[in-house]
């Protein structure tokens, strides 16, 4: 029998872990005994003692397009159909810190997300939504300072005390330099601005999570699952070290750092990645940074079905893929889940596609038993063995990053980007050669023409409306107050003070995203890409 096992065709995960055909008691690592119960250090089995038996994961579909009014309508639709949180998509000009009337914004206003220029837009988008019931995640990075300031100002004006406000900003600028690309300022001042938001929230908005560190986009850009976790944890360490250097204790702020990871491909590899990642993050926080607060050691995450697995070809296959990704996410103990919709490989999801994503998660939650018990795969010889192997892989990658000067330097000189790009290229070549199977693409492909797909219409008149709206705000606001608050913001940036209080004053005076970022650019300059291959 054993010789038969030796002759089984080899299986190796993307992360470089060779998989045996059969696992047994001899494979289960001894360290499992040290894993403790769910809700106990090192949280391999989950960060809460009862996990979904107490509260199922939050369903937080990514959405937003056009104007604040249109996005508000979609938000209400998603809430009506069972979204328990919101995840805001901003358009590219907003994400890049450009106003809707900037020449570079032409043709992009409201196209891939909601256009936000001033506080007026933020107020309209969340009008009537109870921010205590629906927590909001802001997918904003380069322009996090004005957008977070606007969100806080909006909540404050509506009577939600900042000291009780919950929610998340993505605000992970380091990963934007590797993938996704909505950077504005150079690497060092960008890191400082993230530090300002973390410090501000630790003091003023203590239940808010100012950063969601994204392995997600690094994986989407070409990294393996082990690298995704390693880069994510390394970036989180960079933020922790930056804020500690300001004299804050990790127990004061590290609970505000959450994570965002990607799910596609091999189910078991994702499970091992998350269980290992939780264990390793807890150990790093405790051993390296002397955390004592349990919340500072817990890896809280949104783990969503990623776009990298979806295909334009045979788009309905994406529904099936997404269901498996959702299962992987639930089996991995995520706190929040989102799924790319089946049409998201080529367009903003239709209402029908967005609803199907919601239903996929609800069926898993209410019909299939995914919430029945905590960490159901624990104790499996295979899952425990691969969790430990994954932890060793992640550690090794992080060790290499440290040995080569750390993640911030690797990003600043373009090495991290070049590594990920090279892998993306090798992966694409393997797909083109059929070595990585993509059902409906390089195997089981149809000769018949693809079914017609429904594209989200782009309405030019809505962009014009947005530009007109911005013009009206500019014409009616107190210009002297705008100039004075922007000047104060510039001084805070130049003198090394936390920019958030001044940014709050500026957005309350209806300074725009472009004006706030412009003021910061006069001090920090703009990022120049080190394009390396």
């Amino acid at each position: 029998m054993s010789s038969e096992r030796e002759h089984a065709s080899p299986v190796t995960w993307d992360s470089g872990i060779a998989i045996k055909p059969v696992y047994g008691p001899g494979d289960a690592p001894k360290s499992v005994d040290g894993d403790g119960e769910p809700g106990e250090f090192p949280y391999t089995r989950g960060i809460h003692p009862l996990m979904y038996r107490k509260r199922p994961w939050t369903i937080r579909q990514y959405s937003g397009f056009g104007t604040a009014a249109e996005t508000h309508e979609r938000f209400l639709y998603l809430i009506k159909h069972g979204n328990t949180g919101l995840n805001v998509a901003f358009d590219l000009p907003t994400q890049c810190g450009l106003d809707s009337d900037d020449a570079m914004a032409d043709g992009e206003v409201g196209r891939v997300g909601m256009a936000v220029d001033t506080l007026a837009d933020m107020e309209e988008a969340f009008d009537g939504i109870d921010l205590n019931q629906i927590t909001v995640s802001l997918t904003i990075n380069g322009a996090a300072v004005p957008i977070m300031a606007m969100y806080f100002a909006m909540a404050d004006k509506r009577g939600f005390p900042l000291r009780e406000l919950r929610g998340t900003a993505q605000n992970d600028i380091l990963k934007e330099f590797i993938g996704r690309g909505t950077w504005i300022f150079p690497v060092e001042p960008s890191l400082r601005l993230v530090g300002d938001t973390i410090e501000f929230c630790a003091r003023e908005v203590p239940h808010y999570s100012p950063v969601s560190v994204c392995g997600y986009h690094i994986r989407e850009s070409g990294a393996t699952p082990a690298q995704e976790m390693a880069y994510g944890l390394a970036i989180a360490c960079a933020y922790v070290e930056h804020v500690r250097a300001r004299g804050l204790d990790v127990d004061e702020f590290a609970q505000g750092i959450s994570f965002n990871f990607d799910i596609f491909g091999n189910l078991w590899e994702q499970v091992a990645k998350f269980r290992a990642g939780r264990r390793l993050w807890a150990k790093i926080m405790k051993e390296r940074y002397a955390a004592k607060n349990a919340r500072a050691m817990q890896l809280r995450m949104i783990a969503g079905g990623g776009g990298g697995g979806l295909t334009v070809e045979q788009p309905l296959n994406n529904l099936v893929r997404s269901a498996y990704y959702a299962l992987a996410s639930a089996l991995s103990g995520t706190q929040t889940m989102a799924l790319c919709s089946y049409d998201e490989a080529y367009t903003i999801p239709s209402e029908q596609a967005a609803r199907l994503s919601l239903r996929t998660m609800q069926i898993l939650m209410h019909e299939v038993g995914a919430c029945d018990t905590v960490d159901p795969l624990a104790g499996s010889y295979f899952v425990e063995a691969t969790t430990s192997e994954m932890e060793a892989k992640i550690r090794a990658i992080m060790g290499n990053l440290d040995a080569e000067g750390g993640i911030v330097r690797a990003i600043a000189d373009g090495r991290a980007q070049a590594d990920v790009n090279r892998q993306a290229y090798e992966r694409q070549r393997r797909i083109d050669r059929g070595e990585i199977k993509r059902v409906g693409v390089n195997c089981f492909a149809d000769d018949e023409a693809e079914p017609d797909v429904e594209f989200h219409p782009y309405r030019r008149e809505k962009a014009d409306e947005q530009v007109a709206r911005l013009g009206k705000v500019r014409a009616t606001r107190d210009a002297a107050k705008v100039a004075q608050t922007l000047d104060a913001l510039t001084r805070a940036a130049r003198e090394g003070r936390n920019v958030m209080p001044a940014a709050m004053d500026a957005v309350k005076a209806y300074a725009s995203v472009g004006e706030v970022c412009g003021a910061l650019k006069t001090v920090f300059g703009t990022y120049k890409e080190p394009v390396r291959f």
Partner: protein
Amino acid sequence: MTTSSGAVGVAEPIRVLVAKPGVDGHDVGAKLICRALMEAGMSVVYTGLRQSPEAIATAARDHCADVVGLSIMSGAHLPLCEKVAASLKQAGMDHAKLIVGGVIPARDHDALAKLGASAVFGVSATLDEIVKWVEHNGRRTS
């Protein structure tokens, strides 16, 4: 910007500029194509992100590009192509073949052709298809 020269001792390599117009930051695909064209021996420059039409035309002229490839994922391919084509013309670079890749619905292919695109490569295009097209069509005939 990065340049990779083609093999020595053979015909002059085809010169390609790969550009990201507009504000879309997704450039995994653009970089894959750069690498594939470089491996095929072409001389390739990648502009990096967030390039204005004028900057793309200037980069195309500086590189003496035979082919200008635009990568667009955001859906803004029609307005962006129109502007880049106009800038190329203004820079005296309208002899360069303009090709477009990204998330582009089939129904927009004709409109892109009218704007001056010689070829459009959607998400399903393989790297080899793109390399072959450039090898066969990229060289200046004049």
